[in-house]
């Protein structure tokens, strides 16, 4: 009876072979102890084994419990890894964009490759930040990620890795277009190496997706949105600050009290405005605010890094303003499209009730 049960448990466990052997050996030891206890109490051998197996729990339930626990630990690990990969890929991009690689100068990609690299990088940063933020939420709460919440961490991880990979590959292909004019063999090696790193990131994204499938998460409960993540993170901050700097914590508390008072006043005097500012109820307002902030940051960033200063004229200012508006619009539209396509998948936008 015990060996049949162990064979079933082994079959149900979708974990690396070495770990599977360990789990089955521990279960065998436990079941033998239990059945020995049963025999001491006067049970026959078969009945003792049957009771031992019944007390241990159904094989599929035990296996599911293992999958959940391992998936939970692996979710935290993969979030840390994703954060590292995204930061490393961004650093790599910054580095290679600054290297004079061909007769045309640096290997800045153009056309669709530039677009993929630009937006891929941004989605990678946002998805990676989401994964890390959610991992921090559960770590602060004891570490265990409930099965129905695993997708909230695994999916942003997979998207961040895939987008980081796409960004790097797009840059490499963009540089490959100038391959004939590249400076010597080292440049070609650099391009090939960069593309290989991008492929590795894509493979890691596939592995994360496979891990989620292996965890066999239970039916999805109603999911939250990005506002939930931000609120949860905001609640983590006071604890951290309190430990590091009590004075700053007191300042934050008083700012929080003032913000609360202002919010209450707005709610009382302008309920319609307060309703509109409820970002949870109006996800597209959240998207609009985020897109506007990013668009303005990108536009202003472009203007600031594109010169000005001593040669500042009205014509220059007008051109700069136009550039800000155009870049902000492109950025805003890109974010809105990403929000529409990935919002629900990544748990940024709440499912309709």
């Amino acid at each position, binding site marked *: 009876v015990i060996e049949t049960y162990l064979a079933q448990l082994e079959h149900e466990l979708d974990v690396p072979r070495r770990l599977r052997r360990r789990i089955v050996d521990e279960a065998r030891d*436990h079941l033998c102890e239990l059945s020995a206890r049963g025999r001491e109490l006067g049970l026959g051998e078969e009945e003792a084994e049957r009771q031992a197996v019944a007390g241990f729990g159904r094989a599929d339930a035990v296996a599911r419990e293992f999958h959940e626990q*391992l998936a939970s630990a692996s979710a935290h690990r993969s979030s840390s890894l994703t954060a590292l990969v995204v930061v490393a890929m961004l650093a790599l991009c910054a580095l290679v964009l600054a290297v004079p690689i061909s007769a045309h100068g640096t290997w800045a990609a153009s056309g669709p490759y530039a677009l993929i690299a630009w937006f891929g990088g941004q989605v990678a940063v946002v998805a990676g930040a989401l994964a890390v933020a959610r991992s921090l939420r559960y770590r602060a709460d004891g570490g265990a990620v409930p099965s129905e919440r695993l997708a909230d961490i695994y999916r942003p991880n997979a998207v961040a890795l895939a987008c980081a990979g796409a960004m790097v590959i797009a840059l490499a292909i963009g540089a490959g277009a100038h391959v004939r004019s590249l400076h010597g063999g080292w440049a070609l090696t650099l391009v090939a190496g960069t593309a290989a790193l991008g492929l590795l990131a894509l493979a890691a994204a596939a592995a994360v997706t496979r891990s989620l499938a292996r965890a066999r998460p239970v039916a999805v409960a109603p999911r939250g949105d990005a506002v939930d993540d931000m609120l949860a993170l905001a609640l983590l901050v006071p604890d951290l600050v309190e430990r590091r700097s009590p004075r700053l914590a007191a300042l934050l508390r008083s700012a929080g009290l003032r913000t609360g008072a202002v919010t209450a006043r707005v709610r009382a005097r302008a309920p319609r405005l307060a309703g509109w500012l409820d970002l949870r109820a109006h996800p597209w307002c959240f998207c609009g605010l985020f897109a506007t902030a990013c668009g303005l940051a990108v536009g202003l960033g472009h203007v600031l890094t594109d010169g000005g200063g001593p040669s500042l004229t009205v014509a220059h200012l007008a051109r700069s303003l136009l550039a800000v508006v155009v870049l902000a619009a492109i950025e805003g539209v890109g974010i809105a499209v990403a929000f529409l396509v990935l919002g629900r998948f990544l748990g940024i936008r709440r499912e309709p009730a």
Partner: protein
Amino acid sequence: MRSDALKGHLDGLLLAVVADEPAHGYAIVERLRERSGGTFDLAEGTVYPALHRLEGAGLLKSSWAPGATRRRRVYSLTAKGRRTLGQRRTEWGTFARAIDSVLSEAPA
């Protein structure tokens, strides 16, 4: 008591049971049952995933040890596990006192 009612407290209970002396899975379940006066009677297979998770988190360590008839995996507390157990005890003390003061009957 059902396993799901214990879920939020299982980690602390397992650390406390292993704190006195290293033990294998079966002994851990037995100690848990004995020390709770038979109240915590878990589906025994569910203890192992939690032990593996605590080991993964660095709160427990384990190794194979020879037994009378077969080898067995023995779990013991790490330094980090001991610190965590101390925190859990403090948190539980505060929580239990607060609950007790609310639930206990007010003096007439």
